């Protein structure tokens, strides 16, 4: 087993990886940019190496500096987390060249799946259904617009190197196309260092269901069931749950088998996720494979009683998977809610800043994966997710009740978060019914706005008035005490007969 691992990431996922390393007795090396000197992952790691300025391209995306850091600290392996360099084949190759184990798939698998259009071809060859779309990325806006017209609007523009909903844009009509195409290219470049995008048919009211797969270096490849990720805002997942309310045993089994087939088709190694769209007729289409750990991996961990990061490390060290497909048991229901530093009342404007107070939920079935602490300043340079709240309960109904309860215990002060918005989502009849799709949040945006409540408004008025009263009173008391203090000082001085002092009694204190 490795004695030291460098974690090439930041935020909650770096903390997540460090936790498992600590449990395994493996020493950890954190890396950090100028914006992250005070970040929790730096504080928790055994060692920390500075990478560069705040922008990712000058720090967390600097392959050379990461390799140097690993060499300098004697780290034998690198865990890439998600995002940043986690799906960059050149990074894996650089690790190989330096004799450092990359904790993830081989570069060929990353390239095969990272090139979204190439991956589509592979999947078609493997007999996996895919959404109609381009066979190749397209950089010319005119040709892209032409293709979009040929398959009919609405269409999706996606980053060829993408994943996780970044660089994805839905285009409703031809007029919007050019602007969206340019924006998608910019976002793709910013997020992945690669501005290639492609166009795909947009499916109406699809569900986003993904399958967790895991492969070792001994020819074993299994799946750990699904995660339902249809609660999305602007293609960013907000709430994930497992099991999916729409999958039956047969569909679950078939999707699992297809996901394993997809992974095997690229000689996959480690943790990966096959994302599918499921339409209203329960047809499923391969969307893409994320060749890394997902943000929402704890949903699977809670449901299957496993530690996927531990599995990643063990598999990277050459061990076989600890479970066979038949031994994977899923129990109960798990849901994750992503806590973001953003203001839903102001069009989800980011809200970086200092967390002045933090009270986390606890109790039964409640897990927090977070990269923040009271006193931490959330930087503006990185994404807005500050924590994940994941709950487990025997049934979906109980898990939702638990998530509602836990969200109501979550207090963050100093910055604005989406906690209230999350509460409204998980109390919305459409979510409760389980019959929702990826258009849920957009369609229900009005209903998901904060509504007022007469009783609580009255309580808020009472609280603000009493609070102000006490502030006013304390201030008055201080002034009075200061005056009394001066008077007392005068009288004490007088008592001691130091008459000279009386003359400047006003200056005492």
């Amino acid at each position, binding site marked *: 087993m490795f004695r030291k691992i460098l974690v090439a990431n930041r935020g909650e996922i770096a903390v997540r990886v460090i936790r498992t390393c600590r449990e395994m007795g493996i020493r950890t090396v954190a890396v950090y940019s100028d914006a992250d000197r005070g970040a929790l992952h730096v504080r928790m790691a055994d060692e920390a190496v500075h990478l560069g300025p705040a922008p990712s391209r000058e720090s967390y995306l600097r392959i050379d500096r990461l390799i140097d850091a690993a060499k300098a600290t004697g780290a034998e392996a690198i865990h890439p987390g998600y995002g940043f360099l986690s799906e960059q084949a050149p990074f894996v190759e650089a690790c190989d060249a330096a004799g450092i184990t990359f904790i993830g798939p081989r570069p060929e698998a990353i390239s095969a799946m990272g090139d979204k259009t190439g991956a589509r071809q592979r999947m078609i060859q493997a007999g996996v259904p895919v959404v109609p779309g381009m066979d190749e990325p397209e950089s010319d806006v005119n040709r892209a617009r032409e293709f979009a017209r040929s398959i009919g609007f609405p269409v999706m523009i996606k980053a060829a190197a993408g994943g996780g909903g970044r660089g994805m844009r839905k285009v409703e009509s031809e007029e919007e196309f050019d602007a969206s195409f340019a924006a998608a290219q910019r976002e793709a470049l*910013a*997020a992945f260092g690669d501005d290639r995008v492609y166009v795909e048919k947009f499916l109406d009211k699809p569900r986003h269901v993904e399958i967790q797969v895991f492969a070792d270096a001994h020819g074993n490849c299994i799946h750990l069931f699904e995660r339902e990720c249809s609660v999305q805002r602007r293609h960013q997942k907000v709430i994930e749950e497992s099991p999916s309310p729409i999958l039956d045993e047969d569909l679950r089994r078939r999707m699992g088998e297809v996901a394993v087939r997809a992974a095997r088709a690229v000689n996959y190694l480690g943790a990966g996720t096959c994302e599918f769209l499921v339409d209203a007729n329960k047809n499923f289409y391969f969307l893409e494979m994320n060749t890394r750990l997902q943000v929402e991996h704890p949903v699977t961990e809670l449901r299957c009683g496993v530690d996927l990061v531990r599995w990643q490390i063990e598999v990277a060290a050459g061990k076989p998977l600890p479970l066979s497909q038949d031994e994977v048991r899923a129990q109960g229901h798990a849901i994750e809610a992503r806590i973001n530093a953003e203001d839903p009342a102001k069009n989800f404007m980011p809200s970086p800043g200092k967390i002045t107070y933090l009270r986390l939920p606890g109790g039964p079935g409640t897990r927090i994966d977070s990269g923040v602490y009271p006193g931490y300043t959330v930087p*503006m340079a990185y994404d807005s997710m500050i924590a994940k709240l994941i709950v487990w309960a025997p049934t979906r109904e109980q898990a939702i009740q638990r998530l509602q309860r836990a969200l*109501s215990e979550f207090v963050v*002060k100093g910055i604005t978060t989406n906690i209230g918005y999350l509460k409204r989502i998980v109390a919305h009849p459409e979510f409760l019914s389980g019959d929702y799709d990826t258009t849920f949040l957009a369609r229900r945006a009005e209903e998901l706005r*904060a509504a007022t409540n007469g009783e609580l408004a009255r309580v*808020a008025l009472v609280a*603000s008035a009493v609070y102000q009263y006490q502030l006013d009173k304390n201030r008055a008391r201080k002034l009075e005490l200061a005056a009394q203090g001066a008077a007392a000082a005068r009288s004490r001085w007088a008592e001691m007969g130091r008459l000279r002092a009386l003359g400047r009694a006003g200056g005492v204190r």
Partner: protein
Amino acid sequence: MKYQATLDGKQHEIHVIEKGEGVFEVVVDGQAHTVDALPLDHGAVSLIVDRASYSVEMEESGDGKVNVLVRDHVFTIELLDERRMRMRLAGGRFVVEGPQVVTAPMPGKVVRILVAPGQEVKEGQGLVVVEAMKMENELASPKDGTVKEIFVQEGASVEGGAKLVMVE
């Protein structure tokens, strides 16, 4: 002590009478409540109002208002005591008219400027794109008018509240 509170544009009269250590009679718009209030650290207040318990979190919003979190709801309240009310009344209301300055709602980076000085813009039209936390945020014109001045350049990092564009 009498206060005047503004919540969602509505005025409320609140009268706070201290009855004992931490116990108050609070009259809101003529309706009286017995309130046991315990202030805690970090702006938290535990209230027991006629036996109902509320864990309330207060946060100054910086513009003289206070955000009040009660159960799952946030209320933004502006509170004035009698002295400040009189000052406010004497001073009259600040009238929003004339040139409008669009400011950055959060720290970020100006990735694009969508207009030029002298250009006519409509209400809701995008003026500047500011990126923060990996998200592009298009800031729109608050009114129909003409771009009077642009205070920033593309690529510039700006603080929250920084002036971006003036529309007249």
